[in-house]
């Protein structure tokens, strides 16, 4: 066997190892109900939930509450299946939070509250902006 063949085998093995490890460490996008089930079966792994902020009839966001220490806050999010859930976040509200059209929370359930360790925002694209500062 040539050395180059051994090298190729080693590289392929390493690549497969990386592939397996990535699949193992990968998180997943789930709904709030699935996330709740996962947590109640003792799975503490952080997962992603995609959804929107709760809005009233006039399009105003409702349910945002500042935390007692001012550096945290909680809000109500509706996932893609329409389930409402209170989400708490241990950091200040990210910039553009209220402008976002889509929110991704990464975290897990603690009791009945979803505790987010990270929040990602998707903001409207420029072809959907409607408001001009007059």
């Amino acid at each position, binding site marked *: 066997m040539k050395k180059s063949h051994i090298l190729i085998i080693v590289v392929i093995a390493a690549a497969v190892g990386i592939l397996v490890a990535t699949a193992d460490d990968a*998180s997943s996008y789930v709904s709030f109900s699935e996330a709740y089930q996962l947590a109640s079966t003792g799975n503490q792994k952080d997962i992603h939930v995609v959804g929107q902020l709760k809005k009233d009839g006039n399009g105003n966001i409702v349910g945002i509450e500042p935390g007692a220490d001012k550096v945290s806050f909680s809000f109500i999010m509706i996932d893609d299946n329409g389930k409402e859930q209170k989400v708490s976040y241990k950091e200040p509200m990210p910039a*553009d939070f209220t402008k976002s059209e*889509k929110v991704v929370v990464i975290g897990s359930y603690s009791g009945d509250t979803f505790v987010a360790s990270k929040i990602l925002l998707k903001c409207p694209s*420029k072809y959907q*902006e409607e408001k*001009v500062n007059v």
Partner: protein
Amino acid sequence: MMHYFVGDLGHLFVITSFIAAIASAFSYFRSTGAASLDLKDQWRKNGAVAFYVHATAVLGICVTLFIIIYNHYFEYHYAYSHSDRNLPLHYLISTFWNGQEGSFLLWMFWQAALGLVLIFTNRFWEAPVMTVFGLVQAFLASMILGVVIPGLDFRIGSSPFILLREVMQNAPIFVSNPEFIPNDGTGLNPLLQNYWMVIHPPTLFLGFASTLVPFSFCLAGLWLKKYREWVRPALPWALFGGAVLGLGILMGGYWAYETLNFGGYWNWDPVENGIYVPWLILVASIHTMITYKNSETALKASIILVIAVFVLVLYATFLTRSGVLGDSSVHSFTDLGLSGQLLVYLGFFLFGAIILSIVRWKEIPSSDKEVSTYSREFWIFVGTLVICLMGFQVLLPTSIPAWNKFVGFLGFSSNMAPPADQIYFYTKFQLWFAVAIALLSAVGQFFWWKKMDVRQLGKELLMPFIITLVAFVVILQVMVSFYSSEAINARYLIILFSALFTVIANGKILLSLLKSSPGLSGGAVAHIGVGMMLIGMMFSSGYSKVVSLNNTGLLYSREASEEYNRENLLLFINEPRTMAGYKIEFKGERLEPRWKSGYLNPNDVEFIEDPYRVVAKRDIQYNGRKLFNAKDTIEIFPENKYYEVQLVSQGGGKHTLYPRIQDNPTMGVAASPDIKRDLSKDLYAHIVDLNDPEKAEWSKTEEIKVAALQEFFANDYVAVLEKVERIFSIGNTKLDSADVAVKALIRVKGEYEEYLAEPIFIIRNRMVGRIPDEIKDLGVRLTLMNIHPETGQFSIGIDTRQKDWIVLKAFEKPLINVLWIGTLVLMIGFGIAIVRRSREFKKMKEKGLE
């Protein structure tokens, strides 16, 4: 008045650049394929002229876009959504590439510039290389074309010259008045208002652009069947790209370190990974190309890697700009609807390059000799493979969102998400790759220039190994005295040892090279830089520790988390505390003047209606230097508030930190750290929370009667009523002769300075009015309540509130300077190598070989 002309002109330039790029590619293509020399030359000239037109048009686009931004033509969407009237010139420049269209433009600009350089320096390869350039430029120009195909309702590209009203067609204001021009733009994200954002993007895009050069030479080589010859002209450009791209990445990291408050310089965000992977592969390709130049092996590997670099740059562009990452990146991307176009761009060059390689594969020379384990080729090749795996490990999870989309496109569904804790996940793999690279680059360098066997190698490596061991033991001793035994983690020690080993082994090579041929020392210097970077990363991240510990023994807030109460320092104004061996004291809020460097104490200025201007109450000093005279009108940045925090070391040395809070009404609040840089460590501090003066709770007013020059207490501070005098105007308002107004001058002794409060009592139209005066630093508000002429006394109202406070978080980052110095050393290494390879090129050119 709407400025239509400049936008129309800009759009014309875009279309011209697109067509000229295609014309140039076509002409150069014909030139490459032409049979007769005459025809070749004619087509080549055509191609060159078309490229000049293209380059001029690109410059024209840049100039027109900048005119729109510079003159605040807010009828254009680009100016409206990325800038405002109050941005200084250098941020107006960064506005230029803040939007996606502008960054495409920046990329095009650099490639046009590099194309011109190639036309002027390399006649031999001009035609085939510039064919590729022309095609790439045409694709980029199409991204900002903004042309709607009639009948199909399909838009090609997103134009930077689009009018605001075209974007917001449904906004009521445009329905009633199509000529409406907003008074001001929405501004630039405060986090991007940083000098690094002026130079980081151009550097990065120059790096992106320079990866096109080796790619074009490689394709030209395959096309002309000059399989060996393309490597030499491509190599200096690959080195140039490696240096510039690396520098650009590190500038981004440094910006994050200085501006964002997560306490680090790298977050393994998809956007960062998207550039990191091509850079790694670029470095790998440089190694295989050097191997090929020296030993005729690894030609095929070089071809694959050089193509991979450019394709990965396009892939990163696709990932970050198509909206695919929308659910997985903290960077919020606005989707311009270009994903289809970006995919075509990526696919064209990916499949084009693959097909060309497959067609030519059999003809590419390769050596059948079995490589010796004691040859440099073997070890460099192993190192290259490690770098490639390192890139693969990052590329894979970063691509999960794209994979989900792809699977979804095929009709299946995948709900895989990138790992939740990115820093932990990537670090645990990348660390071991880094160790492997450090060891390989230490050992590999010794094969570089002479034949080796086990004994010879052992002899060469013995000295560096012993020195490393000694240095390692010494550092370990120092670490043991500083850190607890749990903190001294085996993984960190392995990194430390291998990084030290590569620094010392390459140092030995450098020393011997400096005597004989310093021009060849680029590799050794670069590897020393990499080793230093590893040492700096290991210490600054692994041994970063929170020093802002709550040492009062009291909870700040019962509701807040335990960590919040433990790891933050609550500082009331002018009340010293201790932190990390310093006496630390919050001295108050500061403002930033626009045209002078320094800070203003709000006590020294009067606020007027215009938020961007204040008037100096008295002469203003900063660090013993006079900044402004009394009555000067000073322009300020009202969004930026700084908080002066003074540190006094045990030796008495003083240092002042100015962490910043930016409050932008549309973008939100952002905290940026300030850093005290010492040789051995950085002290990194940012604000976590502060009191909101608008929500201050004032105590019930206490009213006292005092005579002139009588002392009294206000919020426990000694105050004295100096005098009461009649005034005839308030601010700029002149009072009528029937009005009576008096001003009390009350001097209050603070901890460090005396403050003057000037409350006003006024009788106008028989109505009593009172204008209180607040001394912000002391949390006191004084009101002249009443005058008692019969007793010669005055009633003073005293309101008090909690004094101003901030909550500060501070970290110690040991040896982070080793990381920054290491990056500089790496860049110097690249520089030496570029000089060497360019000299080779010149020699070949003078001989008429190329």
